[in-house]
């Protein structure tokens, strides 16, 4: 009985009991998740794009009777850094010289080609995609607006 009174007096002296939520495990888990996502996430840093419109030339689209059929400049990508640009010029043999050559051919640089001349990249089937894109990049770098890939005469795009 005396013990009971003593305990109740102690409770009164300490005041009402405090009820607190223990957040520590939740914070631990949240930090674990944060570290996991920090380490596991990889962003598409450095990824860029070449824009290209791909018309469906094989379909029965509407044909504009007034549209002039510009003859495209074909750039054959032969592999191992070699290219061939057939035409009334002495074209470059190497991809690294392609951008400079195409820029010299621009009408506003004293050449024959307006910048909206269709440029068709025609890689050999065994050529790496990276090398095909390198030729595409050279044409865009030279300032042409209508660059695409060719497969025979069936398909061409226009890109920049």
């Amino acid at each position, binding site marked *: 009985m005396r013990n009971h009174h003593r305990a109740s007096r102690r409770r009164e002296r300490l005041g009402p009991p405090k009820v607190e939520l223990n957040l520590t495990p939740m914070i631990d888990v*949240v930090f674990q998740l944060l570290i996991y996502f920090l380490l596991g996430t990889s962003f598409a840093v*450095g990824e860029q794009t070449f824009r290209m419109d791909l018309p469906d030339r094989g379909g029965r689209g509407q044909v504009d009777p007034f549209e002039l059929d510009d003859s495209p400049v074909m750039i054959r990508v032969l592999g191992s850094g070699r290219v061939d640009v057939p035409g009334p010029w002495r074209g470059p043999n190497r991809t690294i010289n392609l951008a400079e050559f195409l820029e010299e051919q621009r009408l506003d640089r004293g050449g024959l080609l307006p910048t909206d001349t269709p440029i068709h990249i025609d890689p050999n089937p065994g050529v*790496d*995609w990276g090398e095909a*894109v390198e030729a*595409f990049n050279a044409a865009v770098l030279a300032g042409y607006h209508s660059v695409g890939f060719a497969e025979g005469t069936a398909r061409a795009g226009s890109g920049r």
Partner: protein
Amino acid sequence: MSALSRLDAGRPVRTGANLTPMIDMTFLLVVFFVLVSRITAVEQVPMELPVPNDPASNPADETARIVVNLAAGELANPRSVTLDQTAYGLDPGGLQNLEIELRRRLTNSPEVQVNLRADRRIDYAFVAPVIDTIARSGRGTGRPDGVRVNLVVMNEHERGATP
């Protein structure tokens, strides 16, 4: 006796950092990473993208996009092309299924573009049929200029430290 001691005379001094802002920030970061990592997992397949010298490419814009991935297989050339996390074979049947799915999405979203991510080591012979398929998928979707395709490359100059 100092002023502080006089104020708290007879009581133990309780010191504690207020953790609430830190927990708030941590939760925000977790939510951010959960959302972002889900998106990139769907769109980003690890591969070696083309790295042009002196690239004339543009930063990717925020337009709605469909990402078509063509990753190199064990023997360099791929066996399938993936759209989101669905793989389509490079045989005529697989490419036809890809065309149907692309056309469905292009019809539903008039503004959507197609991002083509292809490994630089792949032969062009494997990429060309995928480009043809993307071009065909625009048929009947009200795109007179054709499907807008973005060829994805890596610009080493823009590349920072990747976690």
